[in-house]
C-alpha cells in the first residue's frame, strides 16, 4: 500500500517537472508546443506511474502463486501428497507461522521449516518489487523529461491512455457480470444434478428441508419452484397495479399541468419515497397495512390472512412509484415544445396532445421506468419477508399469504449451512431463474420499444 502511495507521489513530482520542462522548452510561447503544458505534465505523470502500478498489480497476482508453489516443494513428503481444502488449510498455517502467529493445526518441524522459508522468500519478493517499482517510476520520469519536446504529441498520447482506461472500466464491469452469471450457472448445474430440472421448474410443492442425518425421516425436501414464481408474479403484479397508474398519471400531471413551483417541490418529495429504507416499508406493511386489511376484510366478511400478498404488494407499489413517475416525467418533459405547439396549434386539447403526441414520443423513457420498477418489485425482499409471510402457498388469491423467490433465497441461506447441500444450492437455481426472468423482461421491453417508438429527432 505504501508503495502505491510512493508511486503516486512520484507521479505528482513527474507532473510538476513535466509541466515546468514543457514551459522551459517553449520559452514562454505555448503556441509553439504541439500540446498544452498540462498534457506534457500528464504525459510525464502517466509514464512515471503507469508501468510501476501495472507491475504492482501483476506482482500481487503472480507472486502469491509462485510463493505457494515454491513452498509446497519444501513441505514434508506426506504434506505434499495432500490436496484440495486440506492443502489449503496447511498452507494457511504455513503463512501464519511465517508471520509469527500461532498455527491452528499441529506444527511439525517440517512445517516450521516451510514457514521460515515462506517468510524469507516473501520478504525477498517484496524487496525486489520495491526496487523494480522505484526503478520503473524514476526511469519513467527521466524518460518523460528527455522525450518532452515541442513536437511531442503529448495530447494524443494522453488521450490514448484515457481511452484505454475507459475501456478497462467497461471490461471490468462486463467481466464481473459474466463471472457472477457463470458462477450462478455452475452452482445451479450442481443443484440440478441432485434435483431434476423438471421437478424444480414444474414442481408444485416447495419445502426445501433436507435431512441433516441419514436416519431422519420424512424430510427428503421438495423443490418445486412454481409456488415461488407465482408468489413473485402475484406480488409484483399488485405492486405494478399500484405504481403504474399512479406513477404515470402523476408524471403526466407534473410534466404537463403543474406550475413550475409545485413541480419543483413535488418531484423531490416523490423521489424521497424511493429513498426510504425497505425495512421501514416492511414494518409499515406488516404492522399497519396488513392488520388494517385484515380488519377491513373481516368487516365485510372476507377472510384476509394477517400476512397477505395484497399488503406486501400494495406497499411495494408505493415504494416503486418514483421509479415510474420520475423516469416518465423526464421522458415527457424531454419531448420538444415544438411537438406540443404543433398539436395545440391544430386545435387539439391538452389531453389529446398528451395521449397522441407526447406519450408516444416519450414511450422509450416511460417503458424504461416501468421496467426498472418491475425489476425492483421482483427483486424486493424485505417487504415481502415482513408482510407476505414465508409459506409457499400456490395461490393467486391476493388475500392469502404467499412467498417469493427472493424471500426463499434468503431463508435458504440464513443460518449455518453446508455449502453443498441441495438446500443451499437451490438458492443458486432460484437466482438463475430470477436472472433469466429479468433478462426476458428486458428483451421484451426492448422489442416493444423498437416497435412502438416514435423518434422525434
Amino acid at each position: 500500500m505504501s508503495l502505491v502511495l510512493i508511486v503516486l507521489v512520484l507521479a505528482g513530482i513527474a507532473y510538476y517537472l513535466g509541466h515546468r520542462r514543457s514551459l522551459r522548452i517553449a520559452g514562454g510561447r505555448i503556441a509553439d508546443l504541439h500540446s498544452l503544458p498540462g498534457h506534457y505534465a500528464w504525459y510525464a505523470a502517466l509514464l512515471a506511474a503507469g508501468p510501476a502500478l501495472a507491475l504492482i498489480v501483476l506482482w500481487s497476482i503472480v507472486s502469491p502463486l509462485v510463493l505457494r508453489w515454491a513452498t509446497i516443494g519444501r513441505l514434508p513428503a506426506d504434506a505434499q501428497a495432500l490436496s484440495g481444502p486440506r492443502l489449503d488449510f496447511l498452507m494457511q498455517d504455513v503463512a501464519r507461522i511465517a508471520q509469527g502467529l500461532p498455527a491452528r493445526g499441529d506444527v511439525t518441524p517440517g512445517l516450521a521449516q516451510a514457514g521460515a522459508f515462506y517468510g524469507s522468500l516473501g520478504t525477498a519478493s517484496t524487496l525486489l518489487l520495491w526496487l523494480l517499482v522505484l526503478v520503473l517510476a524514476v526511469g519513467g520520469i527521466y524518460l518523460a523529461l528527455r522525450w518532452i519536446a515541442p513536437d511531442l504529441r503529448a495530447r494524443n498520447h494522453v488521450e490514448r491512455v484515457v481511452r484505454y482506461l475507459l475501456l478497462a472500466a467497461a471490461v471490468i464491469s462486463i467481466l464481473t457480470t459474466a463471472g457472477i452469471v457463470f458462477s450462478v450457472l455452475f452452482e445451479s448445474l450442481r443443484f440440478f444434478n441432485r434435483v431434476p430440472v423438471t421437478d424444480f421448474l414444474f414442481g408444485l410443492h416447495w419445502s426445501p428441508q433436507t435431512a441433516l442425518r441419514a436416519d431422519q425421516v420424512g424430510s427428503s425436501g421438495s423443490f418445486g419452484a412454481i409456488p415461488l414464481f407465482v408468489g413473485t408474479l402475484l406480488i409484483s403484479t399488485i405492486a405494478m397495479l399500484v405504481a403504474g397508474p399512479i406513477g404515470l398519471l402523476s408524471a403526466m400531471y407534473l410534466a404537463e399541468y403543474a406550475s413550475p413551483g409545485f413541480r419543483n417541490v413535488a418531484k423531490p418529495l416523490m423521489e424521497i419515497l424511493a429513498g426510504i429504507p425497505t425495512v421501514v416499508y416492511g414494518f409499515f406493511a406488516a404492522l399497519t397495512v396488513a392488520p388494517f386489511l385484515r380488519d377491513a376484510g373481516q368487516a365485510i366478511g372476507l377472510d384476509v390472512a394477517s400476512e397477505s400478498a395484497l399488503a406486501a404488494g400494495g406497499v411495494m407499489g408505493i415504494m416503486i412509484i418514483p421509479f415510474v413517475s420520475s423516469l416518465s416525467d423526464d421522458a415527457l418533459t424531454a419531448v420538444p415544445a415544438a411537438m406540443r405547439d404543433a398539436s395545440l396549434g391544430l386545435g387539439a386539447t391538452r389531453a389529446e396532445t398528451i395521449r397522441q403526441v407526447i406519450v408516444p414520443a416519450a414511450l422509450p423513457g416511460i417503458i424504461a421506468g416501468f421496467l426498472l420498477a418491475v425489476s425492483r418489485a421482483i427483486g424486493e425482499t424485505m417487504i415481502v419477508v415482513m408482510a407476505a409471510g414465508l409459506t409457499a402457498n400456490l395461490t393467486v388469491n391476493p388475500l392469502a399469504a404467499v412467498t417469493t423467490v427472493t424471500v426463499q433465497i434468503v431463508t435458504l441461506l440464513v443460518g449455518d449451512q453446508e455449502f453443498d447441500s441441495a438446500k443451499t444450492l437451490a438458492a443458486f437455481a432460484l437466482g438463475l431463474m430470477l436472472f433469466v426472468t429479468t433478462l426476458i423482461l428486458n428483451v421484451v421491453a426492448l422489442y416493444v420499444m423498437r416497435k412502438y417508438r416514435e423518434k422525434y429527432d
Partner: protein
Amino acid sequence: MQGETALNATALALDPPQAARAAEAGPKTAPKMATRGVKLWYGAKQALFGIDLDIKANEATALIGPSGCGKSTYLRCLNRMNDVIEGCRIEGEITLDGEDVYDRRIDVVQLRARVGMVFQKPNPFPKSIYDNVAYGPRIHGLARGKAEMDEIVEQSLKGAGLWKEVADRLHAPGTGLSGGQQQRLCIARAIAVSPEVILMDEPCSALDPIATAHVEELIDELRHDFTIVIVTHNMQQAARVSQRTAFFHLGKLIEVGETDQVFTNPRERMTQEYITGRFG
C-alpha cells in the same frame, strides 16, 4: 393548379380574378380578422403596446420588423397560442369574422381549427406522413371512414405541393423527410383541417433557397383559398408573397399598407430605414 389546391366548395368558386377583386375592394369589405388596442404582457414585461391591425380575407399579410419587436407574439395572439404561456396577460379586442376570439363562449379548440399555424422550425410529429396529415382531421372528426380520410390526406398533400414526392411512401415517418419537405408537410397538416386563416412564423427560415422558393410559390397559391399571415425577416420574401405589409417596432405597429406602397414609398422614416437595412 387552382383546382388542385382547392379544398372546399367556396374555395373552388373563388378564382383568382375574384380573389383579386375582393382584395381591391379595400376598406369596404369587412376584414377576416381584426385587432383593436391589443396589449400583451409576459409577467411584468409588456411586449405589445396597443396593436390595431386588420387582416383581409384571401390576402397574405406580412409582418416585418427587427428581432424581438413582437411579431411572433402578435401572431400567437391570433389563435390564442399565448394562452399556454405561464404569466401571459392580454388586453384589447381580437375578432375573427366579427366574433371576439377571447369571448368566453369561443372554444379555443374550435378557434385553432379555424386559425391554423405553421411554425418556424418544421415540427412534424414522429408519426407517419399519413398520420401527420390525418392528425387534425381525426381530432376534429372531419372524416367519416377511411376513404374520406384518404381523400383529405391526398388533397392536403396536393395543396401543399408534396403529393408527388411522398405518394408512394405515405407510411414512412414524417421526420425522415428533408427540411423543406417537412415544412410543406406541416403546411399540409395545417390545411387538412380546412382552416380559414393560416399563421406562418418565419416558415422558411430553416430552409435552403430552393425549398424556400417552393414554399413561397405555395403561399401564393394558398392565398386564394385561405387568409395568410406570415412573419418574415426576409424583405424580398415579404415583397414577393404578401399583398399587405405591417411593420412592427418595439411592440408597436409603426406602419401598415399595401406591400408595394410600403416597400417603394413608406410613410414612416423608420420603415424606410428598416427595409433599406439601415437598422434592425
